């Protein structure tokens, strides 16, 4: 402190510089706090592939397997169900699974059935809109959400509809088809989800 009333620009600049540096350092301490909210190592490690036995699955039935805390559906489709799929193309948003295929459809599922074996559909049962799990509406009958319903999945949260290949109908809130996870057949009756010939998801 000096009795001199004149401003000392050197000191003023030093204070500004010190305050700016201190402020920046203070803000930097937010980084570890923010990063502490990222998934923990335990959460990252919990994503192992799961196996499913499909020997008991009858035509027209669906089974659910938990993979990474999410439902994965395995549907054994009947020949009638499969025959219906190509007829729906003009009502679907993305019938050929061309939108962002690397995220939603592995190469071996980029076909009309979106599956390796036409009979078996394997999809993550989470709506691509906001993540609800759609419900089965396999029966071909008029529904409140679609008077000419041909069977598929209906999301109760926001009304998105998917056909029996997990392809989303046009003009619905969901933008993408249901995700086909990486999967492969270990034998005719055993399937592994989260892993294919190229490695783990």
């Amino acid at each position: 402190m000096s009795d001199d009333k004149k401003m000392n620009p050197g000191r003023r600049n030093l204070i500004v510089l010190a305050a700016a540096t201190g402020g920046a350092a203070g803000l930097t301490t937010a980084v570890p706090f923010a990063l502490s909210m990222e998934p923990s190592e335990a959460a990252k490690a919990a994503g192992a592939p799961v196996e499913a036995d499909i020997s008991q699955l009858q035509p027209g039935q669906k089974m659910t397997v938990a993979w990474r805390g999410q439902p994965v559906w395995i549907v054994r489709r009947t020949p009638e169900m499969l025959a219906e799929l190509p007829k729906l193309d003009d009502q679907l948003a993305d019938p050929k699974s061309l939108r962002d295929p690397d995220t939603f459809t592995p190469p071996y599922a980029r076909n009309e059935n979106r599956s390796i074996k036409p009979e078996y559909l394997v999809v993550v049962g989470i709506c691509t809109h906001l993540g609800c799990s759609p419900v089965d509406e396999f029966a071909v009958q008029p529904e409140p959400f679609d008077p000419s319903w041909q069977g598929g999945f209906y999301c109760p949260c926001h009304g998105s509809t998917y056909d029996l290949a997990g392809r989303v109908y046009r003009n619905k809130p969901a933008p993408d088809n249901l995700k086909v996870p990486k999967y492969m057949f270990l034998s005719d009756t055993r399937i592994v989800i989260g892993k294919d010939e190229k490695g783990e998801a």
Partner: protein
Amino acid sequence: MSRIISGLTALQGWIDARFPFTSQWKAHASEYYAPKNFNFWYYFGALSGLVLVNQLVTGIFLTMHYKPDALLAFASVEYIMRDVPWGWLIRYMHSTGASLFFVCIYLHMFRGLLYGSYRKPRELVWILGMAIFLCLMGEAFFGYLLPWGQMSYWGAQVIINLFDALPIIGHDLSIWIRGDYVVSDATLNRFFAFHVIAIPLLLLGLVSAHILALHEVGSNNPDGIEIKKNKDPVTHLPLDGIPFHPYYTVKDSFGAMVFLLIFAIIVFFGPEMGGYFLEANNFVPADSLKTPPEISPVWYFTPYYSILRSITTDYMWIIRAAVLVMAIAIFWSVKTNWIRWGTLGIAIVLALLSWVLDPKVWGVGLMGTSTMIFFLMPWLDRSAVKSIRYKGPNYKFAITVWVIAFLILGYLGTKPVSDVRTLVGQFCTTLYFAFFFAMPWYTRADKCKPEPERVTWK
């Protein structure tokens, strides 16, 4: 007796020499002059404060028994309901308080819309109030996950996925919020931290700032005229003002008694309120593999939820048309060049984005906008007067239509989707936004009545 009084007076003097006790009491209560013509609508500010206290007190006692752990949470809530002495009462007071908090806040905000309480010089009172409203929505959302029921789980899933829809950063942001790839124990644990400490601290700070800002500028009133314009020449006190204490402390106490009566009736006779306050699906433990067949948010979120559901591929054409109309209207009525060209630029960007971004992203954006747009009220309303009593037919018509649209959206949000409901929802969404976006034009053109010199009061 006189010795006790003189002792207390001495104590007050001792405190006042060390802490601004008496001066603060005067500034905010016994000598805070509020307009004498407050009506029914002016109960809801104080009642919101009362509910806040109820939530804090009941919340503290609930945390003594609740366990923020995905394996234990659901059972610990049932433990509170069945085994903790009077636990059921404390939990029902908390859950009923949550819904009534929104009742009070919505009516409190509507009062602002009726009497122009957001207008100069009360812009900051309004903005701080809106910040409280947003915090409250966050608080309600975080709290709703804690019972770890089916609605808790899937509600959190949907709301966190709203952030996932944001371009570029969305996916990583949603993982950061959850602390996991799915809603899990990590999510529950941090939501507990937000619900019991982070947001309540923020709320208390904002409520204090809201009241401080209000007491700086003074309260508005149903006539929307400033009582500070007519002061007693000798005392310099507003002629139409009365001290908050005792006049309004007594009035608010009466309001509090009526309110607590209603509160108690709900707590004791209908705490679930037919599924609107506590949803049936939330009495089922969270199951990450199965969404309940019928899912809807709690009633206070349903209008915004309906707006979210209304944005489909077809509705994008309405958005494009609205962008065009707004751009032409602003270009035509604003003479400042940089605003004109800026508007044109923004309109072109929005039009491009309407093709680039999914309707889902627009849905999330418009839902956010529908809750935040109230922030702009001080600048959207160009009426010559503040209060609806003296506003012309334009505003009266607009706000009537808006209230009806808001209620219909709220109703639709509780129902499953169907083609007809979606169309009605889209129509009401359009009306909802038109109320705000067209406001500068229809309020400026409004034929307002002259305001009185003094507040009207019988």
